[in-house]
C-alpha cells in the first residue's frame, strides 16, 4: 500500500496543531484529524490558560524541561500567529508560616529548572502587586516570566497557519483504529475511511491511552481529573488584575484567582476524579469549592459578578510525567500522552521535540521554500484605535454593524471568522474566534442576529445552525413544534 501522507496527526488541540505547524515547515504531506467540529475543542479550550513560569514540576522531568523551554517561545510564537499573550508575571501567595516554607521550596525548584527572575516578596510588596489579595497574606513568590494566553487561539492559530502552508485538516473525523503491516502502522482507520501514512502521531489528549491500546501499546492509562471554574464579569478585572495562585498541595496547584487575557476574572480549578472522558458537567459542590477557595485569596469577590461556569478535564496519566516517545513497536508511531498542565505552556517546545525525534527516526525534513510563518486572527475591533476601525469599515462596512453589544463584535468579524483558513461553522466556533457571546449577556442579544448572518455566510438553513455541531441545533421546524 502506498502511503498518501507522510504524517497523520490525531488530535487538533494545542499540541497536535503546533506539531502540524512545525512540520509544515518541511516538504511533507500532512493530515491533521480531529473528531470535533472545530480545532481546540478538547482540553485546550477549557483550562486556566496560564503560561507557567516552570517552578512546579520536578527538576529533571520532561514537564520541567518543556515548560521552561516552551515558556521562552511565546513572544515569537504569539507574534507570528497573532495570538493574544501577556507576560504579566504570576504570584503564589503564602497565607501562613508553612506556606512561606513552601515558597522557598518552589523557588529552589524553579532555580533548578532554570526559571529566571524568581523572587520572594514580603507582605507589603505582595499587596503592592496585588491590592485585591487577602490582606492577611504573608508573602508571595513572584515569577516574572509567567503569563496569560488565549488557549483556543493557540490551537487555531497554529492549525490555520499549518493549513495555509499545505497541511490538510479533517474535522468531525473519529479515529477508530489502525491498520498494521507487520510491525509498522500503515493506516489510520476513521469513520470517514482509512488514511494511509508513513507516520502516525497520537496527540489525542484524554483519549491518548485508548488509541495507544488500539495501536497495541498497553500499560498506560489516563484517569481524567475534572477542574471546574467560574468566569466573572469584566468589571471584576478592573480591580483584580493579577494572576494569583495559592500554595500548591501535592495533588494540585490549587484554586486560583486570575485575570484572563480577555480581562475577565477566572476562579478555579478544583480537582475531582471522574470516569467519563466526556463528563464536562459542572456540579453544585464543585463550583462551591471553587468559590470558597477563591475567597481565601480574594475575600472581596461578589457572587453577582459570575457570568458563567465551565469544566475542563486533565488528562492525568499513570506516569507522573509527560509521555513523548517513539515506541519500538509498532513502528511509525509517535505517542504524546499525559499532556496535562503545564501542557499548554510546553506545547511549542513539545512540537520542536517531536520534529527532532522524527528526524532522528529517519524522516527527511527538507525545508519548504515558500513556508509562511505568519497568520492573522480575525480583527479584534475592541482593541483597535478609532482610525484603525475606520480603515476596516471603509474596506467592509459590516465592521460598523455591532452584533454583540457586550464584547463589541461586528458583523464584519463574524463574516471574517466564517471565511478564514479554518472557518467558524458553529456558534461556539464563532465565539472562540471573536469573543461574541462571551460577555455578560451570554449571547441573549446576539443570537437572533447571528443565526441569520451565519446561515447566510455558510450557505445553510438557519435550522441547520448549531452550537457545537452534531445535534446541538438552536431551532426546530415550526411545523414540527406541536409534534
Amino acid at each position, binding site marked *: 500500500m502506498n502511503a498518501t501522507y507522510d504524517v497523520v496527526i490525531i488530535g487538533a488541540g494545542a499540541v497536535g496543531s503546533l506539531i502540524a505547524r512545525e512540520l509544515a515547515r518541511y516538504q511533507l504531506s500532512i493530515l491533521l484529524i480531529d473528531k470535533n467540529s472545530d480545532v481546540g475543542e478538547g482540553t485546550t479550550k477549557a483550562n486556566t490558560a496560564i503560561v507557567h513560569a516552570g517552578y512546579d514540576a520536578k527538576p529533571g522531568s520532561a514537564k520541567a524541561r518543556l515548560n521552561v523551554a516552551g515558556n521562552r517561545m511565546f513572544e515569537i510564537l504569539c507574534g507570528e500567529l497573532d495570538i493574544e499573550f501577556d507576560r504579566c508575571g504570576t504570584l503564589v501567595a503564602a497565607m501562613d508560616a508553612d506556606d512561606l516554607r513552601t515558597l522557598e521550596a518552589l523557588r529552589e525548584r524553579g532555580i533548578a529548572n532554570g526559571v529566571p527572575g524568581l523572587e520572594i516578596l514580603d507582605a507589603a510588596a505582595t499587596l503592592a502587586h496585588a491590592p485585591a489579595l487577602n490582606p492577611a497574606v504573608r508573602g508571595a513568590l513572584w515569577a516574572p516570566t509567567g503569563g496569560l494566553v488565549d488557549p483556543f487561539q493557540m490551537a487555531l492559530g497554529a492549525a490555520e497557519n499549518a493549513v495555509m502552508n499545505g497541511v490538510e485538516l479533517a474535522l468531525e473525523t473519529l479515529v477508530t483504529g489502525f491498520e498494521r503491516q507487520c510491525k509498522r502502522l500503515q493506516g489510520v482507520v476513521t469513520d470517514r475511511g482509512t488514511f494511509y501514512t508513513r507516520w502516525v502521531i497520537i496527540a489525542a489528549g484524554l483519549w491518548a491511552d485508548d488509541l495507544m491500546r488500539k495501536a497495541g501499546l498497553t500499560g498506560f492509562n489516563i484517569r481524567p481529573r475534572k477542574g471546574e471554574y467560574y*468566569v466573572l464579569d469584566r468589571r471584576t478585572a478592573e480591580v483584580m488584575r493579577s494572576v494569583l495562585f495559592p500554595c500548591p498541595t501535592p495533588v494540585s496547584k490549587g484554586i486560583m484567582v486570575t485575570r484572563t487575557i480577555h480581562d475577565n476574572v477566572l476562579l478555579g480549578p478544583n480537582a475531582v476524579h471522574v470516569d467519563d472522558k466526556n463528563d464536562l458537567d*459542572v456540579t453544585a459542590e464543585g463550583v462551591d469549592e471553587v468559590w470558597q477557595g477563591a475567597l481565601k485569596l480574594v475575600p472581596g469577590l461578589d457572587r453577582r459578578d459570575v457570568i458563567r461556569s465551565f469544566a475542563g478535564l486533565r488528562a492525568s496519566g499513570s506516569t507522573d510525567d509527560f509521555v513523548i516517545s517513539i515506541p519500538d513497536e509498532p513502528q511509525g508511531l509517535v505517542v504524546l500522552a499525559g499532556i496535562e498542565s503545564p501542557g499548554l505552556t510546553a506545547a511549542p517546545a513539545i512540537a520542536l521535540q517531536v520534529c527532532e525525534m522524527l528526524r532522528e527516526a529517519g524522516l527527511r525534513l527538507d525545508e519548504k521554500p515558500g513556508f509562511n510563518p505568519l497568520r492573522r486572527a480575525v480583527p479584534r475591533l475592541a482593541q483597535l484605535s478609532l482610525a484603525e476601525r475606520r480603515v476596516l469599515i471603509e474596506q467592509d462596512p459590516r465592521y460598523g454593524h455591532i452584533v454583540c453589544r457586550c464584547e463589541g463584535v461586528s458583523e464584519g468579524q463574524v463574516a471574517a471568522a466564517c471565511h478564514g483558513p479554518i472557518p467558524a461553522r458553529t456558534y461556539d466556533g464563532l465565539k472562540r474566534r471573536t469573543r461574541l457571546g462571551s460577555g455578560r449577556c451570554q449571547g*441573549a442579544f446576539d443570537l437572533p442576529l447571528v443565526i441569520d448572518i451565519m446561515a447566510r455566510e455558510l450557505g445553510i438553513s438557519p435550522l441547520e445552525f448549531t*452550537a457545537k455541531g452534531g445535534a446541538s441545533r*438552536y431551532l*426546530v421546524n415550526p411545523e414540527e413544534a406541536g*409534534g
Partner: protein
Amino acid sequence: MSLPHWDVVVIGGGPAGMAAASEARAEGAERVLVIERNTEAGGILPQCVHNGFGLRVFGSDLTGPEYASRWLRRAEMAQVEFMLQSMVLEINADRRVLVSGAGKLHELSAGALVLATGCRERPRGALNIAGSRPAGILTAGTAQRLVNIEGYMPGKRYVILGSGDIGMIMARRLTLAGAQVLAMAEVLPYVSGLRRNLVQCVHDFDIPLHTSTTVTRTIGRERLEAVELCAVDQHWQPLCETARTIACDTLLLSVGLLPEIELARMAHVGLDPLTGGARVDESLQTSVPGVFAAGNMVHVYDLVDAVTESALRAGRQAARYVLGNRLTTAVTPQTIELGVNIHHVVPQVLHLTPELDELVIELRVRSPIEQPVRVEFLADGERVVSQRLRYARPSEMIVLTLKPDEIACLQRAEHLSVNCRPWES
C-alpha cells in the same frame, strides 16, 4: 475640529426614548436626535405582539407594535431625528457620543443626553445551575424575539424557570404555537410577574406552575434533553430528596431584568444597587449634570404607560437644561430614606427648589401584603401624602404623586422617607 452637535441626544429608541425626545422638542429644544441600534424604533415593543399596552396613556388596549407606532408618529410629527441601526459604543461625562453603524463610526456632541437604553435579561451564569451547557437554554426575551420577529421556533417541549412577565407571556405564546410547556418553576413562594399575566397566560392555559421550586441541573450534551427540578426551603436551598427530572428540549429563563447601564458607567453616572439602574433626582437627572435617564434603565417598570410618563418628564427637563431654564443645582440634594417594606424608590434624591411643581415618586415593596395597605410619604415623621391600596406586591410598581402644596411641606424637612404597611383600621 468641532463635532456635529445636537441639543438633546436620546440613546435608545424604545418607548422611553421616543417619549423623551418628543417632549424635549415640545419644550423647545431645537435639534433632538434619537440613536437606536435596531432597524426600527420601538425598543422591546415590536416583539410584544400581545395586548395590554396603553390603557393609561391612550385609554385603549393596544399591542406592543401599535403602542410603538403611535409614539413613533408623535416623534416624527415633533420633528425628532432618528439615527437607526446605530449602536452607541461610548459616551462620556462631557456628553460626547461615539456611534457605530454599517459603514460608519462617528462622534457627536450633545447639549443634554437622555439615556433610554432599556434593560437586559439576567443570564444563566448568574443562576448557578449545575450540569451541561447544551443548545436549548435561552432567555425568554430572546425566545420571544426569535418567535415573534424572526418567525423561528427554538424548541418543542419547554420548561420555564422564573415567573417573570416575559416568561408567562411566552408560556402562552408557545402553547398557542403548538409547543408544550411542561412546567414553570419559580423559586419564590409567589409569582414574580403581574397577576394579570398569571391568570391570562398561565392559569387559562393550564401551565403547571411550581412555586418554591427551581432548576438545579441541566442534562444533555449537544441539545438539552432534560432538566432537574427541586423544591427549595425558605432560604432557597434545594431539598435534594424532592429532585425529579423532566424531559424537555428547551429551558427558558425568565429570572429578572437588569437595567442596561454600560453607557451610564462610562459617563461615571452614579448607580443605585437596589434598582441596578441610574440614581436620579426629581427631574430624572443623574449624578452627572446634563445627563438624564428614562425608562427601564432607571428601574425596571412593569407597564409601558409608566415608562412613557416618566420619560416625558426626563425629556422636558433635558430640554430645560439645554435652554438654561433649570435652577436645581443651587440647593443641596436630599436622599429619600427607605422605610418599612420599601425595596427602592425613584427618584432616589430630591432637589427641593421653590420652583418645583411636580413630584412623582415610584416605588416597589419588598414583600407582598395581601390586604389593604397604606403607602405614605413622610417629612420629619409627618405624613405628607398617603394612599390606600387594596394590596401591595413587589411585582406591581406603586406611584405617589405630590401636589404643589404637598411639595411645599417638604421644603425644610431634614428627613424624607416612605413606608408601606397594612392599613390600620
